[in-house]
């Protein structure tokens, strides 16, 4: 049986096709990711973007539409995925996917483009509690993105540059809009770019950490979402949360889509 999870984020669409693997003819909860597909919708509308990403994922996996038993959607734009049978919240999907990948995880930190959140989960991957910063770009990927633009560094360079700094420059501005001016004045005052990059990522990490602390940091921590690709942010987050280890999945952007597809599969039984 094949199911699909579509995570319709504010900046990208993630599709996971999941196949149930039968062991000795009896269905067990073993699944294989058939195909993960990410798309950044540029100028196309959200509803078309979901359709396009899904079609591309099917083609890449060599699966026809009829073979997909059910499609679940999550993410801020989940209502725009018209062909999905059901929607689940980002918290539910994120917790489910993270615990499937790391059964020992109890705290999930999800930092996407427009939202950062902390989720507390139980052993079954059910979200028990969460705290997020809806409505504010500070403490989310957009903040880091805006600042790397101001520094004229690619996101990759930005994350790596931060690792080369051992300074802790406090950012006064919480707001992304004001922080951008602050970064510009730091540039003008000849502050090294790596120190500025670290100051920015420390600021995002401290905002994210404040949200996670609201639900409480317990057990193993998993970080999901695109910011996993930023090693500077990961270091800043570990430091802010005061934990030795943060589990980092290989395909961090797809964890919620995976959770979504898993929930879709379970509902089939």
């Amino acid at each position, binding site marked *: 049986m094949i199911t699909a999870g579509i995570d319709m984020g504010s900046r990208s669409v993630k599709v996971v096709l999941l196949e149930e693997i039968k062991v000795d003819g009896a269905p067990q909860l073993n699944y294989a990711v058939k195909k993960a597909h990410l798309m950044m919708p540029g100028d196309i509308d959200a509803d078309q973007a979901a359709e396009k990403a899904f079609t591309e994922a099917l083609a890449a996996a060599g699966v026809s539409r009829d073979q997909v038993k059910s499609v679940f959607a999550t993410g801020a734009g989940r209502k725009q995925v018209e062909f999905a049978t059901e929607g689940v919240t980002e918290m539910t999907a994120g917790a489910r996917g993270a615990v499937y990948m790391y059964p020992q995880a109890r705290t999930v930190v999800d930092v996407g483009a427009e939202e950062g959140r902390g989720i507390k989960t139980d052993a079954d991957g059910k979200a028990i509690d969460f705290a997020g910063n809806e409505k504010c770009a500070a403490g989310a990927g957009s903040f880091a993105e*805006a600042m790397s633009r101001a520094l004229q560094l690619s996101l990759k360079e930005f994350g790596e540059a931060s690792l080369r700094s051992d300074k802790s420059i406090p950012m006064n501005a919480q707001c992304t809009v004001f922080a951008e001016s602050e970064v510009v004045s730091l540039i003008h005052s000849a502050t090294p770019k790596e120190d500025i990059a670290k100051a920015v990522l420390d600021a995002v990490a401290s905002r994210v950490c404040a949200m996670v602390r609201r639900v409480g940091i317990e057990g193993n921590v998993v970080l999901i979402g695109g910011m996993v690709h930023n090693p500077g942010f990961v270091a800043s987050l570990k430091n802010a949360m005061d934990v030795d280890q943060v589990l980092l999945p290989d395909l961090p952007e797809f964890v919620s889509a995976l959770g979504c597809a898993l929930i879709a599969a379970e509902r089939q039984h």
Partner: protein
Amino acid sequence: MNAEVAAATVAEAAPEKKEFWRWQENVWFDETKNWKDAKIITCGIDVGSVSSQAVIVCDGELYGYNSMRTGNNSPDSAKNALQGIMDKIGMKLEDINYVVGTGYGRVNVPFAHKAITEIACHARGANYMGGNQVRTILDMGGQDCKAIHCDEKGKVTNFLMNDKCAAGTGRGMEVISDLMQIPIAELGPRSFDVDVEPEAVSSICVVFAKSEALGLLKAGYTKNKVIAAYCQAMAERVVSLLERIGVEEGFFITGGIAKNPGVVKRIERILGIKAVDTKVDSQIAGALGAALFGYTLMQKQAKAA
């Protein structure tokens, strides 16, 4: 590549950088009076995050002002603002008895005798501009927003401030003005030129509102309608700040956004009260208050002597 294409490429590479988001700089003085007849001349200089104002007060009455952009350093901005009005009326620094600095750059006003917070100065300025019935002041500045309560003398009794978030401040409006490529002074009038009043944009955050605005344009909203949705969001945002402190009648708005009827009328609509009218440029309230404080101090000194 032919010449025409080459020219077009060059033009694209160096677009003319228009500053849609700036208010016009302006200098004004009261032509019916002569400052040389005044006994006491005081000056207030408000160095804000976006604009700086210098106000000249003669014997406790507004005489002239200059409002201009804040440069990248406070002392120069203060000097330039004052020089602008002094040149206009043929005054020299030694003609001024007392100078008070205010605003976020107040500690950097070179020739100031004293620095006073902008909260006190805005209340005092509003009391002069709107009369002694003013009790609630909303100061919408370039990078912050304050709700202030004052008594009949213009003395602050309570205040609340948002300087953490660009939403509900001039900065938020500048972003939209830039995005729409429409001069800031036209935003207000345009926001009423719509077929139906739209809902406010749902994003409070300026960063997200920007992408939301683009989405609305793509969905077929006219520019004016997007501006209206944005003005409404900004009005709702500042009203929530006002409501935390409570709104008493005698409501007065100062700062740059007070010049944007698109936001002001929507605030009035939500609150169900009309703001007190004034003929004076709302942006000079802080500097005017500072100059009036200077006048009070001079009077006290004269009495003591």
